[in-house]
């Protein structure tokens, strides 16, 4: 933690990590949510991964 604070331009560097993980989390949430919603409407026999 001290290392990060002492880092030059920490705002930009940590910001790039935060931005990346925020975008990935948002996209992942959207993918999983659509999967759950659709799974409720489809018969289990039509889900080839089961």
């Amino acid at each position: 933690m001290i290392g990060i604070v002492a880092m030059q331009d920490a705002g930009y560097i940590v910001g790039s990590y935060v931005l990346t993980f925020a975008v990935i989390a948002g996209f992942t949430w959207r993918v999983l949510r659509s999967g759950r919603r659709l799974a409720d409407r489809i018969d289990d026999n039509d889900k080839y991964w089961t």
Partner: protein
Amino acid sequence: MTAATTPPITPTESARRVRSTGTVATRTLGISTVVTMGWLVAFGLGFSPADRDQRDAVRILYMHVPTAWLAYLAFVVTAVSSALYLFGKKHSLGFDRVAGASAEIGVVFMALTLATGMLWGKLTWGVYWQWDARLTTTALLFVSYIGYLAVRGLGGSHDQRAKRSAVIGLLAVIEIPLVHFSVRMWRSLHQEASVLDSDGDVDMDGLMLFSLFVGVVAFTLLYVWLLLHRSRAMAMEDLVDDQGLDRALDERRAEAAS
């Protein structure tokens, strides 16, 4: 009190229903992805040293480079799946769904490449954006795949969607060599290859190289995990569309018969 018209779902029936796109394999893959991402943060922000020239800005490259490489891979998978759909004997829609899912993930990774690149550019060049050969061709690649996704969203049957998007998927992938070699073909502000020098030798500090390797592994796991979930969700979207079409046809037939 009136009797219920449909029997309630018992707890055992409810437990039997598959309510997601996940399996034991994808859950294991998901946990591995989270653990590897944790390693990436530890090495990228902690253990890895600052660069002699770029100083701490080099830490952004542990996000920027893997997202760029995985976006390229995603677009190549889109092209290969498109070719398998177009030229395969069965014209399997499964290939089309893999192509579409991979393009979506590739667009997200490419957007992250551009965003993290802009932050790195501000620290290294003093500006967020330059109409430099590498940046411009990358932006063009990004816009091309936005177009690919827009075409997938147009109306029509699943086969019509698959055919027109497969053609675009095969054309758009030609841009990747242009993006990759743009730094050699034109005078560019962007640095050349991050890992290999012009002689093909590895030109990177050991811990920096390892941090980049962790990043590539983490984003590869994430890509495979997302691809599995998204292509399964797309298969269900197609089924729901088909069910809706069948229902509409039945209603019209009933109207015509009455």
